[in-house]
């Protein structure tokens, strides 16, 4: 109970702050005066328009032509009234959209009673606005006038008027002039069964009903009346208006809800009015707070069954409706929300998929409110749930100049763009079947500078966007789709028509013979299947060229490739080799050790290694003899394997050494014994240094480590005594790595997409030279968080979406004030979480005065490490973290644009991994042919700024490849050439750090980049330290030169961009 109270209190406070940001101050006299003046200025300007102007199609020929209207001449009369409507009148404007709607009531005299036919009303409506625009633009108080559309309906343009005067509170303020036509036509004529667009009729068939067209006119007729109804409910009800603002903020974060085929602010306010009045059972009452109203409304949207039956704003209108009539409504529209008159369905534009989307989002948000730590505030009101982050697959179609879209005219019952949307959606739906959970197609109008005179052709230049939510990978990565069986002739023909030559008749294992489509591909490229299907279907059924369809699915794969393919395909062999190794280890007889378990530690074993190693021909006993044809690499990446073993004699005797060094020495002695024994019994090669023992087996190098449980006990006591003195013994480290490894492995099994997302994330981190700041394990945990706590989304279903969310998480998470709790197997209890929070607060408390330097800056708590000591204790520090956050923010924005917008340049995707080199004080470039794995380099770095300080020759001592000339020699010699775990970059960095401690900070790419970034370390502020330092100050050029000396034969060139600043 206490927790709940605190939660809701904190929510109240947060909402208060939120309102401060988005609410308009209606009590401010300057503001109200300003708006009143602007509107009255417009009113005055319209008043000056002379009466009896003859208006004809010539004012906006393009519009009249495209809308397909015939008789449009009329005589202009002044509007009956000009009134402020919309959200300003209900005091529910949510910044930053601060426009004010003004209803311009068109006089009846301008229209004939039969003008509801054939878009005559729409044409006249537009021409009426043209006249107003013409006169307004000469008015002094008005800066500019633009055309826009009413809820994205092209045949219903509105005027957007920008006043000359501006108010600081309302940047970019404008007034929308919306024409209305109360009681213009007989509502019976606009009944949904009537046909009012004659061109739609075919000869000899019954006239086709035009419900959407009729709705479009009815909407204008009842706009004011409905607004009045809403206004009455909202009048003087502060909480209701606040709740509406909350809903607007919520919906705006979900751009696809605030779209033409889904909800808008007015519809929300109508639903809330319904819930607040008798007809809705007064589900919202005056005692409720804004957040409660918000919840009730979402709950109603998400769960109510009334949507299909029809929701009446006025109960009496409901009763009068006949059953048949309602059936007709249900057939014509997917959602029914009857307006106060009972004649018009307010939700006539809403499509089924749009509404499903809304319901989904409402459900998810309610989930957030119930489950998330801060009552879902962050998730509901602060997180952007846009198309790139929400959907797993994104298709962007460029339909510019495509004749097919408007082949039968722009506007019939529905507009051609809406019909095309539906067509695309149906195609994809049929093509993907159950691979997709949900498909949303949206052809949004960017509506920049549209001119009605030009007609509708300009709208085609906007992009059509498709979002696909993939179902589970087992389904969506399926290779074969089974169609109807051959016996069902009709269906089979249909299937063949749809798929064309892709459909084939197949006999399946269970004996059935059925039509089917096969999407054959390698295991590692299965994520591309959906893309292949969508492209095939769209190209087959729509007249499009391939470059006009961009499906984001595999565009980032290049960063994971090694050579031509994804090295993840080698994982299978790796597991076989590991199984053999662990079997052999267990069966070793001539050592005094009992191997109880063998556990892999390397990330390659959990599919999260960016470059899982390829089997090396020289490291394999069976292959060494053969002459291999390929040029192979010199270096072999060692894979760490942890052995849990008991010593048969030492264990019980108490003679096991007690201090750290001796333990480590004893362990390496055992490992050497194991190595020798393996060498003898199985003939595998073994090479060792004082620290590491590597076993070469089936093409892989396994680095053996022994975990000694005693070591863990020793450590715990030390930690218990003194928290500050954090001693991480080798055993503790091994233990934690083992825990991490098995947890991540489990997670990886649950979410097959997890692996690729981690790999992309690691690659990104490394290619921006953050290898030193953010460890691999930390990245794995961050990505795990995306999958474990996906709200307000579902767990990512594609690598690009996952990667985007990773970038956003990194940049948006509140690292300073909250711990990130990653509960992989959900084994943290409430008590544990409380403990974590306390530990976190403790870690922050000591730095209370100085928020800039907290430690660990990134608090990652897991079941095996509640104090965040394992991975992020030392790095990233606050400065590094800030840098990472800035980079991830810009990368996330860039990736969003890559998905949503047509690229300006073709190499856009690569730029995500190309790091700007001008953010460092100095740059060291390396010889790429001396990197241990040159093929892992993404781009050769070049720099054309700063001062060229030094240049180095490349060494002949080391070649990353074993040259073919060497092949002729004996296999023993070849084997000696192999270098296990040799990494010149690491050696260079170590030398640099040793020679220049505290001189500069190094940024590098551990995955095979050819760049090292340097930033000077600022002299510490303490006086004594500064004194010492000042004696140590060196000319930066000399420093860099001697740094270059250290990298002899490896360093290509050094550039100085910025000299360090001294305050001496």
């Amino acid at each position, binding site marked *: 109970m206490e927790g709940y109270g605190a939660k809701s209190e904190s929510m109240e406070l947060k909402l208060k702050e939120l309102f401060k940001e988005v609410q308009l101050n209606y009590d401010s006299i300057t503001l109200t005066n300003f708006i009143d003046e602007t509107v009255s200025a417009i009113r005055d300007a319209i008043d000056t328009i002379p009466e009896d102007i003859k208006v004809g199609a010539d004012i906006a020929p393009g519009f009249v032509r495209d809308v397909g209207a015939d008789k449009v001449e009329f005589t202009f009369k002044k509007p009956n009234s000009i009134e402020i409507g919309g959200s300003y009148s209900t005091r529910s404007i949510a910044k930053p959209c601060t426009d004010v709607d003004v209803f311009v009531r068109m006089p009846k005299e301008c229209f004939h009673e039969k003008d509801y036919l054939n878009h005559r009303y729409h044409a006249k409506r537009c021409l009426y606005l043209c006249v107003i625009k013409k006169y307004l633009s000469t008015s002094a108080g008005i800066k500019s006038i633009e055309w826009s559309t009413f809820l994205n309906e092209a045949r219903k343009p509105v005027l957007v008027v920008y006043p000359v005067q501006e108010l600081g509170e309302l940047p970019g303020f404008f007034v929308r002039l919306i024409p209305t036509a109360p009681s213009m036509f007989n509502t019976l004529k606009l009944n949904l069964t009537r046909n009012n667009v004659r061109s739609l009729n075919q000869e000899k068939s019954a006239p086709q009903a035009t419900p959407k067209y009729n709705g479009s006119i009815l909407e204008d007729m009842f706009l004011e009346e409905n607004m009045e109804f809403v206004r009455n409910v909202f009048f003087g009800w502060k909480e209701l208006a606040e709740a509406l603002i909350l809903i607007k903020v919520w919906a705006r974060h979900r751009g696809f809800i605030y779209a033409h085929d889904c909800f808008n602010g007015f519809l929300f306010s109508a639903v809330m009015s319904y819930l607040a009045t008798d007809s809705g059972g007064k589900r919202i009452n005056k005692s409720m707070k804004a957040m409660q109203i918000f919840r009730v409304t979402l709950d109603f949207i998400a769960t109510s069954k009334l949507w299909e039956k029809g929701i009446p704003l006025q109960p009496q209108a409901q009763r009068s409706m006949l059953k048949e009539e309602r059936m007709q409504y249900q057939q014509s529209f997917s959602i029914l929300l009857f307006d106060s008159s009972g004649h018009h369905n307010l939700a006539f534009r809403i499509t089924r998929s749009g509404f499903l989307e809304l319901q989904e989002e409402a459900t998810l948000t309610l989930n957030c409110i119930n489950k998330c730590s801060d009552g879902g505030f962050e998730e509901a*009101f602060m997180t952007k749930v846009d198309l790139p982050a929400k959907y797993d697959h994104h298709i962007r179609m460029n339909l510019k100049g495509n004749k097919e879209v408007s082949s039968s005219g722009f506007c019939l019952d529905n507009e051609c763009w809406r019909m095309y949307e539906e067509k695309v959606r149906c195609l994809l739906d049929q093509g993907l079947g159950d691979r997709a959970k949900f498909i949303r197609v949206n052809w949004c109008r960017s509506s920049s500078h549209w001119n009605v005179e030009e007609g509708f052709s300009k709208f085609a230049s906007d992009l059509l966007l498709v979002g696909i939510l993939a179902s589970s990978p087992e389904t969506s990565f399926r290779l074969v789709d089974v169609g109807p069986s051959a016996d069902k002739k009709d269906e089979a023909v249909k299937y063949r028509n749809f798929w064309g030559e892709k459909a084939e008749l197949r006999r399946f294992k269970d004996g059935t013979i059925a039509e089917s489509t096969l999407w054959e591909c390698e295991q590692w490229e299965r994520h591309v299947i959906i893309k292949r299907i969508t492209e095939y279907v769209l190209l087959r059924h729509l007249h499009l060229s391939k470059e006009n369809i961009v499906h984001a699915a595999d565009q980032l794969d290049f960063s994971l490739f090694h050579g031509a393919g994804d090295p993840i395909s080698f994982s299978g062999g790796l597991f076989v080799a590991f199984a053999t190794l662990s079997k052999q280890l267990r069966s070793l007889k001539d050592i005094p050790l009992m191997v109880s378990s063998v556990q892999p530690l390397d990330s390659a074993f959990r599919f999260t290694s960016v470059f899982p190693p390829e089997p090396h021909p020289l490291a394999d006993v069976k292959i060494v003899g053969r002459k291999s044809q390929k040029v192979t690499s010199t270096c072999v990446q060692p894979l760490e394997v942890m052995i849990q073993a008991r010593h048969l004699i030492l264990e019980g*005797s108490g003679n096991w050494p007690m201090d750290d060094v001796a333990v480590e020495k004893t362990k390496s*002695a055992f490992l050497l014994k194991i190595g020798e024994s393996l060498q003898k019994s199985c003939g595998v090669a073994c090479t060792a240094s004082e620290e590491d023992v590597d076993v070469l087996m089936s093409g892989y190098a396994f680095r053996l480590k022994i975990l000694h449980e005693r070591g863990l006990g020793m450590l715990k006591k030390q930690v218990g005594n003194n928290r500050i003195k954090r001693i991480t013994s080798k055993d503790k480290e091994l233990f934690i790595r083992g825990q991490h490894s098995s947890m991540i492995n489990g997670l990886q099994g649950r979410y097959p997409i997890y692996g690729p997302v981690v790999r992309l994330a690691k690659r990104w981190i490394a290619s921006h030279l953050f290898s030193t700041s953010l460890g691999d394990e930390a990245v794995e945990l961050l990505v795990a968080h995306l999958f474990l706590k996906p709200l307000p989304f579902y767990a990512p279903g594609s690598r690009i979406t996952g990667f985007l969310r990773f970038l956003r998480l990194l940049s948006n998470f509140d690292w300073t004030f909250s711990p990130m709790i990653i509960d992989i197997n959900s084994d943290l209890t409430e008590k544990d979480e409380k403990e974590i929070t306390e530990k976190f607060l403790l870690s922050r408390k000591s730095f209370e005065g100085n928020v800039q330097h907290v430690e660990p800056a990134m608090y990652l708590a897991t079941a095996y490490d509640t104090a965040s000591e394992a991975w992020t204790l030392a790095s990233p520090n606050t400065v590094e973290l800030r840098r990472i956050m800035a980079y991830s923010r810009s990368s996330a924005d860039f990736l969003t644009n890559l998905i949503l917008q047509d690229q300006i340049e073709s190499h856009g995707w690569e730029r995500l991994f190309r790091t700007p080199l001008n953010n460092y004080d100095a740059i060291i470039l390396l010889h790429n042919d001396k990197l241990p794995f040159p093929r892992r380099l993404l781009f050769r770095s070049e720099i054309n700024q700063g001062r060229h300080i030094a240049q180095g020759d490349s060494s002949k001592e080391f070649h990353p490849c074993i040259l073919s000339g060497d092949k002729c020699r004996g296999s023993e010699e070849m084997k000696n050439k192999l270098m296990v775990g040799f990494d010149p970059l690491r050696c260079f960095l170590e030398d640099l750090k040793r020679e220049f401690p505290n001189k500069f900070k190094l940024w590098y790419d551990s995955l095979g980049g050819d760049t090292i970034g340097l930033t000077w370390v600022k002299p510490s502020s303490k006086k004594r330290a500064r004194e010492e330092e000042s004696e140590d100050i060196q*000319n930066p050029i000399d420093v860099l030169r001697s740094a270059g000396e250290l990298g002899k034969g490896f360093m290509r060139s050094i550039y100085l961009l910025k000299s360090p600043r001294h305050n001496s």
Partner: protein
Amino acid sequence: MDRQAYGGIFRLYNGIPIVAFNIIVLEDEEIEVIITKAICDGLRIAATLGFRSLCILSVSEFAVKVLNGIHKQPWACIPDMRDAKEIITNMDSCLIANKKREGNKPAEYISTKMDIQDKIHKSIKAKIKKKKNKLSLRMKGKKEKDNEAGGDLGIQHGSEGEDDPNNIKENMSIKAKEGKKKNKLSEKRRKNENEHKAGAEKLGSEGEDGSIDLKCSEVDNSEKPRKAGKREKSLSSMKSSESIEKISDGENEVYHVSSGDDDSSKGMKKWVMDYYQSRPGLTILHERIDEFIVAHEEQEEQAKIEREARVAEGGWTVVAHHKGRKKSTDAESGIAVGSVSQASVLDKMAKKKHKDVGLDFYRFQKREAQRTEVMMLQVKFEQHKKRIQQLRAARKFKPY
């Protein structure tokens, strides 16, 4: 006629020479043996100077192996080796590596042209007085006595210094030494500047590879800040705090770093070498570990004896908690020492039932508890408020 001498040069880790020495060889020995002796002499000097960390480079692979204990020592240098081993073990770190001949011209110069032994010892003494450095120094000792080369140079030298060879040589080496000294001893700096430069350049000019050039330019740079009256530098930091505007012309050139294939002290070659050296084979590793364990056990034994001695002295029996197996009797004295592990005590304590009266027994206790709870809530509320202020400061409420 043949002048036989060996010598060495000490450099800072950044390559700046600080001490050099040479010694005339009287006995007739194998070249490898003499090199080994030279290294041993170098080590002695290093020990006198109190250097804590060394990297020794020598042309002779044999000598390196001897010193590293891979080869058996020749009998001629057994006494030297005994000293050397002791010095090495006392060092914080000592690396002995092999280096090809070409890159070591300065040392050759020393061994052949510079031969005033006692002066060197003087300067060494002076240094010892001033020296406070405990920083890691790298001794770049180049010892050599090559009959052929020595002969050649000897002839050269003979023809050059016919009139007064000793004088000329003395002058030169004093200059060089003074120059070096000046780097550490700040007194006569400005006076001796020219000399210093000359000395440094003399040394530098002997170098052929890039690394020597570097050293030269670094010495040059170090002059400027001193002219500007900057703080005196200690021996270890011959570095300049010069700002970038004052860069001399030479620095605008792109500095060229060689591939280093002939220099095993730095760069790729060193790494590759290190890699191979760190993997000498399973047997040797085994031996090393065994040695360590033996030494370690001895040490433990020693500590134990000391402990016992202490116990005997004071007449007290120190009862310590033994990790590992529980012992009921002390092995040495036979006294029963019951020891219970801390964990088991805690465990037992936890198992004990709480028989205390609960804290809510009296009414006033309940009331107090309520009051504190309300207080807690208030504190929490304040915390939230504070938190939100922080968030607001971070503009966390701007939804878009």
